[in-house]
């Protein structure tokens, strides 16, 4: 049982090639226990999205396997929810309907429960006034929030979030970071989260995986919880230890990339 | 010869692909037209309205249609086009095939008949109906293209079809089970369904020699058929994408090519009109009655026997 929890999500010797381009180089190994919040940090184009898509079942590994709860991940299913880098909402649904779409294929919720959940996440992302608006009528950041709310509403066990907060203002971002962290720890969700914001990474992560530039290799695996504990709040952000860690990681990250 | 070639007068002909028009092709193949200084080209088109449009525009010099087609709308006494000769007459090639339950024309009362209203069968039927004291009001006509009549006949609700050969024989054969038989045939109306050679009278006036030559070519070919049917058929068949055997079948029992002598007899002279004038008036009445024409046309204005009369047997040598 415990073992099961420990190797909940496993990357086993994974490689990925697109034609001649090697995106993930063998052997890529990573073991993520259940309920861990893992942040991927790495240079643009290194292969983070590709890894997420493979976990989600949208791409296939060229060699190696990704296992979830012991068995290889198949085609996408509702266990693995995804927030895409290009935050796509359905243009034919209103904001609220888009969020409710997240639960469309859940058979365990009553229509009423779905409606109230949808409204809850609508409020959570601050779009209460825009429930009836169509995606073509809202701003980029608002659209991104729709996608976040949709995936949260779906309530999958594994959340794959590809730069979900990229287009949000600092305020909204902090608020959603706190919410996400709360949901994750309360509901024991396993999260893979891509961001380019080191501060965000430290604030959210139990563990940060730092990637080299393409082909993706792990160059650092930082256990944040060991240093900062698992409680995250705004005060932490202004603390000395947070600031120091941030500087360290920035240094590591800077070293990953020899800019042309 | 080179100068003769340069002087070849183009004559463009329009007609449908009925075996009756074969003499025009054979005359071309045998070089009759060339020898007469004509260059004849043929276009195929079923629709009278298309032919009229072609003549109107001046693209077409000669149209070949039945006399009753000639009378139809939109012809008025002033519409260009005058008949100067005949090429063939239907002799069993048009008619009506009926179900076994139809013993005589009077049995058709209240029944559904499939046929096109602008084919000879329609006129023959009209003649027979009036003989039986009936008219088209007493039957139900469903419009159908002549070539589709055969398929339509497989529907049991259709009591009879009006069509032409080879569909008539085929219908009798395929639907033997229901006692299909030829109820009406053009064979019983000799000299009625006649294909005429129609030309624009102003063109005729301007250049009578060309049209006379055209007639000579046609009648030479008819004469060739009468003396040499096998060779004629061999030459004609490819123009209809038929084998010689099929072509022969489409002629025998269906039509007769009108020779120069027959044509001259039909036409008579300006002073002493031949029997075709009478046929014209009969058909005119029918066409006026069934609404296909809306002007009373005079036979005297519709025929010009002069070119035909000027041809002698010696010209065909």
């Amino acid at each position, binding site marked *: 049982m415990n073992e099961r929890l420990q190797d909940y999500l496993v990357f086993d010797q994974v490689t990925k090639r697109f034609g001649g381009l090697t995106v993930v180089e063998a052997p890529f190994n990573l073991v993520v226990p259940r309920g861990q919040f893992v942040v991927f940090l790495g240079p643009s184009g290194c292969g983070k999205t590709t890894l997420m898509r493979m976990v*989600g*079942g*949208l791409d296939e590994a060229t060699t190696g396997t990704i296992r979830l709860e012991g068995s290889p991940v198949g*085609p*996408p*299913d*509702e266990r*693995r*929810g*995804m927030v*895409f880098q*290009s935050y*796509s909402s*359905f*243009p*034919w649904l209103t904001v609220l309907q888009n969020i409710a*779409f*997240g639960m*469309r*294929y*859940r058979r365990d919720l009553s229509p009423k429960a779905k409606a109230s959940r949808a409204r809850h996440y609508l409020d959570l992302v601050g779009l209460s006034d825009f429930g009836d608006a*169509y995606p*073509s*009528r809202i701003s980029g950041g608002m659209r991104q929030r729709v996608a976040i709310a*949709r995936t949260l509403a*779906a309530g*999958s066990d594994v959340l*794959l979030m590809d730069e979900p907060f990229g287009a949000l203002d600092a305020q909204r971002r902090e608020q959603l970071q706190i919410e996400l962290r709360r949901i994750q720890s309360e509901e024991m969700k396993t999260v893979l989260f891509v961001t380019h914001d080191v501060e965000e990474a430290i604030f959210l992560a139990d563990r940060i995986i730092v990637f080299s530039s393409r082909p993706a290799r792990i160059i650092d695996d930082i256990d944040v919880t060991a240093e900062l504990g698992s409680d995250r709040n705004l005060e932490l952000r202004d603390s000395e230890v947070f600031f120091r860690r941030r500087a360290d990681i920035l240094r590591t990250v800077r070293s990953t990339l020899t800019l042309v | 010869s080179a100068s003769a070639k340069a002087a070849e007068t183009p004559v463009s002909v329009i007609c449908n692909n009925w075996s009756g028009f074969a003499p025009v092709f054979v005359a071309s193949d045998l070089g009759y037209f060339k020898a007469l200084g004509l260059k004849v080209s043929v276009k195929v088109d079923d*629709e*009278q*309205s298309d032919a*009229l*449009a072609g003549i*109107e525009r001046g693209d077409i010099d000669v149209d070949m249609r039945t006399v009753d087609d000639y009378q*139809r*709308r*939109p012809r008025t006494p002033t519409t260009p086009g005058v008949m100067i000769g005949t090429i063939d007459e239907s002799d069993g090639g048009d008619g009506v095939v009926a179900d076994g339950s139809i013993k005589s024309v009077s049995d058709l009362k209240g029944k559904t008949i*499939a046929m*096109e*209203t*602008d084919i000879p069968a329609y006129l023959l039927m009209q003649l027979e109906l009036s003989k039986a004291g009936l008219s088209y009001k007493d039957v*139900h*006509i*469903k*419009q*159908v*293209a002549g*070539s*589709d009549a*055969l*398929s*339509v006949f*497989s*529907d049991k*609700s*259709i009591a009879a079809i009006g069509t032409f050969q080879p569909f008539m024989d085929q219908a009798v054969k395929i639907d033997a089970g229901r006692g299909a038989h030829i109820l009406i045939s053009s064979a019983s109306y000799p000299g009625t369904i006649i294909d005429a050679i129609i030309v624009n009278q102003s063109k005729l006036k301007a250049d009578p020699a060309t049209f006379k030559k055209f007639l000579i070519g046609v009648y030479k070919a008819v004469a060739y058929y009468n003396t040499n049917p096998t060779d004629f058929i061999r030459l004609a068949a490819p123009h209809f994408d038929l084998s010689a055997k099929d072509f022969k079948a489409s002629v025998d029992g269906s039509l007769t090519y009108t020779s120069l002598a027959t044509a001259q007899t039909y036409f008579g002279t300006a002073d002493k009109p031949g029997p075709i004038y009478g046929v014209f008036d009969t058909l005119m009445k029918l066409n006026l009655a069934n*609404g*296909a024409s809306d002007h009373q046309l005079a036979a005297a204005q519709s025929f010009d026997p002069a070119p035909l009369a000027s041809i002698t047997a010696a010209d065909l040598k």
Partner: protein
Amino acid sequence: MSGALHSAFAFRGSLSRRKRVAVALGSSFFILLVWQIASWVGLLDPIFLPSPLDILGTLYDMTARGEIIGNALISLGRIMAAFLLSAVMAIPIGMLMSSYRPISAALEPIIDFIRYLPIPALIPISIIWFGVGEETKIFLLWLGTFFQLVLLVVDDANRVPNEYVEVARTLGARPYEILRDIIWRSMLPGLINNLRITLGWCWTYLILAEIVAADNGLGYVIWTARRYMKTDEVMAGVFVIGIIGLVTDQAMRAGHTWLFRDQGTSR
């Protein structure tokens, strides 16, 4: 004024409903006027192309004689039946072809073959199969529409962004649910446009269908008139078809704009 003209002619600009109607009526009347004048001065032979006013007069007479409305309704009914049948078949088949490679591989060559065939050559066999009643007429109209429509549907379904499909898949949608909730909804604006286009196409086959063992319908009226070269009646019938087309088309366009006003995807 010149400013208004300028803004009306802006690239992908907009035009008020009222101006649009004015321009549309203006251009139509202009054409009719040119035609009428050409007839008056004798450029057009009325035997082959009567003037608009003549056609209108004939149309009035024919309507008074009861030749138009009933036959138009009959034709409309046939078109609707055939078109609905085409759409009802083409939409699911097209969506499946777009979504499943083996299905498209199996059906593509057959569809590609059949859709090139000249309908008139297939009339006899369809009479044999379907008799001389309504079935043959509807079958011929269907034959002319279905095989083209199905390809347009495939194209529409192919244009649905893969992203939408992927979002739905990660939310646990099964294939038929993707078809219903994503492909169908996303392709709808394009599909309705293509249905509109294909409907016009279906009408062009009307004469073909209604000269097969027919005794009613606009196609029959036109063809009968044509046999007797009553060009004014032919053109009056043709006019009625054109007007029906124009009206359904404009109605469908307006419906489209209204239905998808919020999606902001297609103009």
